[in-house]
């Protein structure tokens, strides 16, 4: 299955208003290029969760976001600066979830759902689990040191197959 390439890209400040606009645009592009399918929201949820994380933890002025259809995959990339502890925690959590089996991911998701605690910035601790659960097994996080020793540039890439 080969889809027409399409791309949604954004570089700039990320606020709740911008996130809503990006989400609307993503919905229109996904619908136009992929058609109505029962997993459309599931596919787009990966981008929304990555944007949520970026909004919570971004310490810089801008983020980079892109959503592309490449062959039979959707590739979502988000880059943002983050405090060292947040960046390292993100990387550790992604590595930990990727090492789990599908059953372990499902159980971890349920356990985290029942945990009534939220992070300081409103995170439920479910985002990474949800991304991987919804098909984003191909999830990479790169951390690049910045000129500020307490910050990293976090580069997240998630590739999801469009083939059921």
């Amino acid at each position: 299955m080969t889809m027409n390439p399409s791309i949604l890209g954004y570089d700039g400040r990320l606020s709740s208003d911008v996130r809503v606009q990006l989400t609307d645009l993503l919905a229109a592009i996904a619908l136009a290029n992929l058609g109505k399918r029962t997993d459309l929201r599931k596919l787009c949820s990966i981008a929304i969760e990555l944007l949520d994380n970026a909004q919570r933890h971004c310490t810089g002025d801008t983020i980079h976001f892109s959503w592309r259809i490449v062959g039979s995959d959707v590739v979502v990339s988000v880059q943002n600066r983050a405090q060292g502890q947040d960046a390292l925690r993100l990387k550790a959590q992604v590595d930990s979830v990727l090492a789990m089996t599908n059953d372990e991911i499902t159980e971890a998701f349920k356990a985290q759902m029942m945990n009534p605690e939220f992070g300081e910035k409103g995170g439920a601790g479910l985002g990474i689990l949800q991304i991987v659960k919804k098909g984003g097994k191909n999830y990479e996080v790169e951390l690049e040191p910045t000129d500020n020793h307490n910050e990293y540039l976090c580069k997240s890439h998630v590739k999801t197959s469009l083939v059921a």
Partner: protein
Amino acid sequence: MIMQTLSITETRNSPAVSFDGHAFVIKGVSTMVNAMEFYKSLLALLDECAQEAPRELQVEINLCYYNSSSNKCLYLLLERVKRMIDKGFRVQVTWCVEDDDEFMREGGQTIEELLGLKFHYKQVPFNGERLF
């Protein structure tokens, strides 16, 4: 005791909520970065409601999409509903799903399983305009 009521207008990233003492409806989209800020008043409302005399209650979750922060809030909200059932409230939970949308169906099934509740799944047509 005065029965609590509530009406919240929908925004671009938060749902409309209505509660008249007998029907509790959440409708729209729920993608706030800090969802608990929004849902804490709803949790408090159900806690107060649970102190009242048991009665019939209709709960309808009619969201087209919610993020993971909202997901946990919905779980906590329905956990309150479960406690009300345990206290003698007769509750029907209706979970709306647009055109067999996998995201919403799986989300309902996960909460249903975790809480041991039985949802009534209602198919609603996709209006072709709003994905999120």
